[in-house]
């Protein structure tokens, strides 16, 4: 009997499901970053707003990369439904704290999928995920450095203005 299952796709149903969940997570991250950009813009933090607009685009790029991969290997990528995106944040610092938490959650999720791929001997997907895991090193580094600016500069006086000035200068160099 022909193996119609593998002739159609090299993805297992389990990995396809996990990757679709990751698509949802990346799409949610993109939407949350957009909300953060809006909040920053409304509160006069223009540089931080631009930073979050860029982050939002980047997360959408990640989502599309996974989306394309699923379809390329014969699976079915699902366009995610994203609900309950916050529009208000506690503080300027709170926005960056949430950004870091979001990145940590994304890394943990990618690690879980990579672990599952190893268990299922799906090294094709594992190899595909390696790029994302490397990317997360940069994402977490940048989020941490941004948050550290609040400690280094302090928020008193012109502190918030200075932090906003420095945010765009945070880069990751290997």
């Amino acid at each position: 009997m022909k193996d119609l299952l593998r002739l159609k796709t090299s993805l297992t149903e389990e990995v396809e499901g996990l990757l679709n969940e990751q698509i949802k997570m990346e799409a949610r991250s993109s939407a949350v970053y957009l909300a953060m950009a809006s909040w920053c813009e409304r509160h006069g933090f223009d540089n931080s707003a631009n930073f979050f607009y860029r982050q939002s685009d980047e997360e959408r790029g990640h989502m599309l990369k996974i989306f394309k991969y699923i379809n390329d290997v014969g699976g079915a990528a699902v366009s995610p439904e994203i609900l309950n995106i916050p529009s208000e944040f506690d503080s300027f610092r709170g926005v960056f704290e949430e950004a870091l938490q979001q990145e940590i959650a994304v890394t943990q999720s990618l690690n879980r999928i990579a672990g599952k791929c190893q268990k299922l001997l799906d090294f094709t997907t594992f190899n595909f995920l390696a790029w994302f895991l490397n990317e997360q090193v940069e994402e977490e580094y940048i989020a941490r450095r941004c948050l550290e600016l609040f400690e280094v500069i302090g928020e008193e006086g012109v502190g918030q203005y200075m932090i906003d000035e420095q945010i765009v200068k945070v880069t990751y160099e290997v």
Partner: protein
Amino acid sequence: MARVIFRNESGCLYQDDQKACFILEYGGHSTSLSVPCFFCLKKTIDKIDIAAMIADPDPAADVEIISLHGCDRCFVLTIAELLNLKELFAGARTMLELNSILQERIYGTIMV
């Protein structure tokens, strides 16, 4: 020649190697399903919240209508039929996975 993948009291799912499709025999009708259509139908059935259908007092909630692209049959299913079909597809899915494992073992052995 179509081969039986899985059969239960309500129906049977076959695989047609020549046409590379599945054939669903259910409710006295035979329906040809392409591979994507097979998975789409399975996912659609799996997503239906049967507990919510049972809890809903509206008579309209007792029936689910499923119409898929690439499938010439429109399924109008009661809760009992949904449960039977769910079991049929789950069983077929397991057998297809088993076939994949067997194929992998056979070809893996030849390659070594």
